């Protein structure tokens, strides 16, 4: 449980912005700007943040869909960007991904069975193909007769189950879930999240669960990392984070969770303003433009990411 399955050190991913004129200095979107964290074997690490904070980029770098600009990603102490082709092929079996949009993550011209079978064929597991696929379909709650149907015949929830079965096919150890339920109806979300928890136990999976929905992350995660403008500002055990949030941004996010009781009054102190552009980042602490507890130092110096308590990291001048 405590062994690290994935270690990320000082990861950066910059995207070049198209220049308006030839002589302009090239600018970059700093989607991920120097983050470090670890994922432990068997846990679920929730990664939350507003849209555009770089959380999906982190997921894509981990599954090698995007090359990092700097930093290292190590899977079981091997840098995944130093691997040769055979090692990369082996890595594909270990790290899989569940995509956000079940309407575009399935090839419209392939039948369900074929979609789930494809990872097996590519990785040369030729025995009992049909039986394996049918077992996967049962595990994710799909009926056997769906085998010969096209994706467009299914609802969003069922499509997402197909996507999950495809990710499970290679029996991976780590699955990057990139907002797996945010495109679904709320009533379906719970079903899918519960099913994901069941298969996590059954297949001994580790999840990196990327989401902007704190409620769902609270339900599924063991630990939670909060991202803001390409940086992780706080990371802690779920209980600690919800009972004793340290970073003002985390506090703001927690206050923004809707309360399902209309008689209870929503706490004051919601986050104000918009997220600054990741091209022209504010000086000093990135959050100072929206922070309620801003100090002089915040506009000048970037705070240091430090372990304030056991396993509780935060990046804020309040805790210097």
């Amino acid at each position, binding site marked *: 449980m405590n062994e690290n399955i994935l270690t990320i050190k000082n990861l950066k991913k910059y995207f070049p912005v198209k220049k308006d004129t030839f002589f302009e200095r090239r600018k970059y979107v700093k989607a991920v700007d120097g983050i470090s964290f670890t994922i432990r074997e068997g846990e679920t690490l929730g990664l939350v943040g507003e849209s555009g904070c770089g959380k999906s980029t982190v997921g894509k770098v981990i599954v090698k*869909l995007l090359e990092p600009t700097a930093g290292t990603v190590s899977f079981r102490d091997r840098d995944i960007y130093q691997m040769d082709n055979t090692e990369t*092929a082996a890595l*594909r*079996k270990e790290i899989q991904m569940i995509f956000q949009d079940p309407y*575009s*993550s399935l*090839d419209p011209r392939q039948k369900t069975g074929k979609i789930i079978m494809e*990872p097996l064929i*590519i990785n040369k597991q030729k025995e009992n193909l049909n039986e394996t696929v049918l077992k996967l379909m049962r595990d994710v709650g799909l009926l056997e007769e769906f085998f010969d149907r096209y994706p467009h015949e299914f609802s969003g929830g069922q499509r997402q189950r197909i996507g999950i079965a*495809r990710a499970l096919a290679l029996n991976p150890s780590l699955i990057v879930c990139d907002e797996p339920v945010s495109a679904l109806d709320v009533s379906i979300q719970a079903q899918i999240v519960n099913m994901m928890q069941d298969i996590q136990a059954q297949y001994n999976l580790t999840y990196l669960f990327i989401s902007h929905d704190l409620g769902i992350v609270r339900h599924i995660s063991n630990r939670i990392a909060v991202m803001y403008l390409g940086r992780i500002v706080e990371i802690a055990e779920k209980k600690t984070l919800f009972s004793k949030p340290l970073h003002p941004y985390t506090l703001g996010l927690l206050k923004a969770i809707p309360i399902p009781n209309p008689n209870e009054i929503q706490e004051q102190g919601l986050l104000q303003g918009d997220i600054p552009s990741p091209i022209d980042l504010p000086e000093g602490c990135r959050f100072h433009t929206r922070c309620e507890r801003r100090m002089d130092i915040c506009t000048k110096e970037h705070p240091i990411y430090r372990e304030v308590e056991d396993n509780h990291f935060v990046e804020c001048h309040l805790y210097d």
Partner: protein
Amino acid sequence: MRQSVLKRFMKRKIAVLGAVIIVLFVFMALVGPYLCAYDPLDIDVLNKYQSSSREHLLGTDNLGRDTLTRLVYGARITFIISVTSVFIGSLIGMIFGVIAGYFGGKTDAVIMRATDVLLAFPGLLLAIAIVAILGTGIINTIIAIAIFSIPYLARIVRGSVLTIRNSEYIHAAKVIGASHLRTIIFHIVPNSLSQVIVNTTLNLGTAILTSSALSFLGLGVQPPDPEWGAMLSKAREVMRSTPIAALAPGIAITLVVMGFSLMGDGLRDALDPRSRND
């Protein structure tokens, strides 16, 4: 899904009319020669330039050959030239389009500039230039028309591949370890195929027009082989006295080109989910 495309196609009466015209002409090309009383190359100078009669329904040409028989045999040549050339051209164009769209960057830039060069020539001029280099004849006509349809297909396929490439299912294919070749063959090509079918159909009409034009100018199919464009060219001299000799191949060309256009438009509407308004 295939069923519904057919259904949507059948709803468009004009498109169905185009399809019927094409089917009739194809039938004529396949079966017609077995029903003809004359040989398309039999010369009968005594009966040249006849108007339509019981013996010669569409009259005879400058050497007394039966126009109807030559029309029927000409359909074969016309279809062989247009179908093979468009098939070859589409295949090559599609390969270039897929490569350009999928890999992007410099590969894309090089291929697209090459198609720009080809597209800069007016279509017929390009075909004439190619025939001038290669020489006349059926095979060279096919090559000329094939080259001329490459850039159109390459552009259209590239466009659709650009959108497909950014779909999550292509990312998913990469994550499960699919190679470039596998991704292209199993995911990119099947999803851009409807575009290819539509444009190939539309190109067939253009190809027939070009091959007829080449033959009309004496650069395509050579006499004595019956070809609609060549027949039109010979009959032009006697347009006033025996108009039927020019009208028959002229109308045949018009009908077939129109048939392919209507069918292609109908296919495009039936395959394009965005225009599903009925």
